[in-house]
């Protein structure tokens, strides 16, 4: 799949990123921070932005690419409007997190790591979300849903449709 990066439409975000880099120029280890900022602003890390960062920080693109692909939080492709993270940490796993994931995959007809064709949802399997007391747990755009049952999952997803 190829994405065409919309330079014009993203002008504001690019400006914000440049300001961020200028502001933090003096701090050491700025690359990780820049990648986080990019992910926050664009929802993923576009190749075009990596090229920009490369020029700005005078760091080879290959190195930036190497860092961006090492960390599972950074995505090189756009995500859905609603990002669902299903916890497969230990506490959730023993309480049926796998079944929750299977139910979501069935409901949205995509696999873990994929995005629905209409761009509305993507599903990620994550490790512990730190709400193990409520296992099994999933997170949709930073909001935690706990003590899930298969019925509850369906209800919650419908509320986002």
């Amino acid at each position, binding site marked *: 799949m190829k994405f065409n990066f919309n330079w014009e439409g993203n002008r504001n975000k690019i400006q914000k990123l440049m300001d961020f880099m200028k502001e933090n120029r003096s*701090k*050491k*280890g*700025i*690359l*990780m*921070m820049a*990648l*986080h900022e990019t992910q926050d602003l664009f929802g993923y890390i576009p190749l075009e932005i990596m090229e920009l960062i490369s020029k700005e920080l005078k760091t080879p693109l290959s190195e930036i690419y*190497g*860092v961006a692909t*090492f*960390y*599972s*939080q*950074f995505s090189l492709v756009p995500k859905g409007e609603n990002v669902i993270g299903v916890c*497969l*940490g*230990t*506490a*959730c*796993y*023993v*309480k049926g997190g796998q079944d929750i994931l299977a139910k979501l995959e069935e409901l949205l007809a995509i696999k873990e790591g994929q995005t629905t064709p209409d761009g509305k949802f993507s599903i990620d399997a*994550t*490790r*512990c*979300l*730190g*709400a*193990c*007391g*409520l*296992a099994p747990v999933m997170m949709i755009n*930073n*909001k*935690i*849903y*706990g003590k899930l049952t*298969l019925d509850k999952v369906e209800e919650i997803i419908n509320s986002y449709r």
Partner: protein
Amino acid sequence: MITVEELKKIRENTLKKMDLKLHKLQEEILDKEGALNKKLILICGGPGCHSSNVEEMKARFEKRILEKGLIHVEVSIAGCFGLCESGPNIEVYPEGIFYSRVKMDDIDEIVDKHLCENVVVERLLNEGAIESGKIKHVSQVNFYNKQKKIALRNCGIIDYNDIKEYIALDGYQALAKAITEMTQEEVINMVKDSNLRGRGGAGFPTGRKWETAFKYDADQKYVICNADEGDPGAFMDRSILEGDPHSVLEGMALCGYAIGAEQGYIYIRAEYPVAVERLKIAIKQAKEMGLLGRNILGTDFSFDIELRLGAGAFVCGEGTALMESIEGRRGMPRPKVERTAHKGLWGKPTIINNVETFANVPPILLKGADWFRSIGTEDSSGTKVFALGGKVKNTGLVEVPMGTTLREIIFDIGGGIEKDRKFKAVQTGGPSGGCIPEEYLDTPVDFGSLSKIGSIMGSGGMIVLDESDCMVDIARFFLDFTVDESCGKCVPCREGTKRMLEILERITAGEGRAEDLDRLESLAEIITSGSLCGLGQTAANPVISTLKYFRDEYEAHIYDKRCPAGACQALLEFYITDKCIGCTKCARSCPVSAIRGKVKERHVIDTEKCIKCGACMEVCPVGAVIKR
């Protein structure tokens, strides 16, 4: 910037306003007159309860209180109360009444009945709060009365967004004392004498580590707080950071003073946005008051703290990988040629400690090394926070003195196994740890004892497993995790764990071979001895410990093609018992039409066709479908 004097004044003034909260600590009311009329509603804002939107709850309380014209009622949100299982939790003071599973619609009733008429809303009381008809004070509930709080001392009491409340409960007093009255050596000696050992997993003596960095001359030194909390099933550090962020900041500043560093970093995982937010607020407040930054409390000690976000790589919890990551590279562990206390971040002497380790430091400085050593065991002083999860009734956060037995934690505090099933094992230490069977439940929990029985203390994850959990599958689960998270630098770790996972997958799929167990054992040896960092060195532990204690389960899978726990789908058969009433629901829900039967007659599953999806079991109204 404030002085030590002003710090004391803030403490006194704020204390006066907190008398009801202190009741939680002391079980006595400081100002009896006032307290009779005053009430405090404390809402839990911990990771579990927070997901049900506590800010909205607070607003609802305030609205109703206003409508009812009550003037002496304060509503406050605090960090994790610990009992996540029964959340959202609420406490009412001065009487110490503990309400659980409070919904938005229950709030008016609490205000109308409890606050206006002084009638307790019994249906919302926590299950543990009533005994032989009497309502117990929250501190007397079984879940709490065996606990001892040092790292969590302020969690669930203070308002995490208000530095003044932290100061009121002795906050920043230890820092003030250290930088105005103590030398660097004195601080280090006190930490050394306390026998505080690192809470991040390995249990290295904290004071000794600090001394190493102190003695090494350099123009620049660093302090790092490891808040990566990688164990997939643990949230101790998160709860401390969210419930009492300043205790960690103060611990770091004390370390900075002791070793001679002016810059600290908190490396926190990006999955914890709430903790990041609260830390940002805490750092800002501390800077505004001059408790961080240049010339703290007017002395010539300066110390600043910055946040750095992780990005979802477990291996970055390892000290040197974490430093690589802060420096902006792939988080791969460094060969241990040089100690990080000599050459760490950017090649400078660096101390890295866990969140909970830092949170323990201020009380040690204030109350002394002897006090700390009087708690816990010879081997391990103090307390440990555990995230109790899995098949236990009271899932949540507990802090107990070292040396408390597993049985006390799981059965007395945790309330035993849910659904009254049978206990099978407890997993400690996450992917680096092991599974402990019933016969060792009376083992005291400290660093030494747990490693003797093939597990580790780890950072504090404690997952309880019952008879329906398959131990081979649990081992497979952890190996799957390690394969995912290995950074790939060492061949034994990268390839060896993959081979192990393949074998475990084969066994759980019912295709295990006779030679598999030997092969697992030899792989375990190679991976353990041939890996660079702790991830690889401990990756085989979940397999080794389950092989040791639950070998018969492995054998049942391999030789009898049977999963004794009834968990491995491939080895199960779905079966309809004579309870069947012939409602035909199952036949209609089966996606592959494997179920036959007439209306009002018992149905039968064609096991050849069945894909074991479990749909029939879910829809059966009388529970006639079983796995066997």
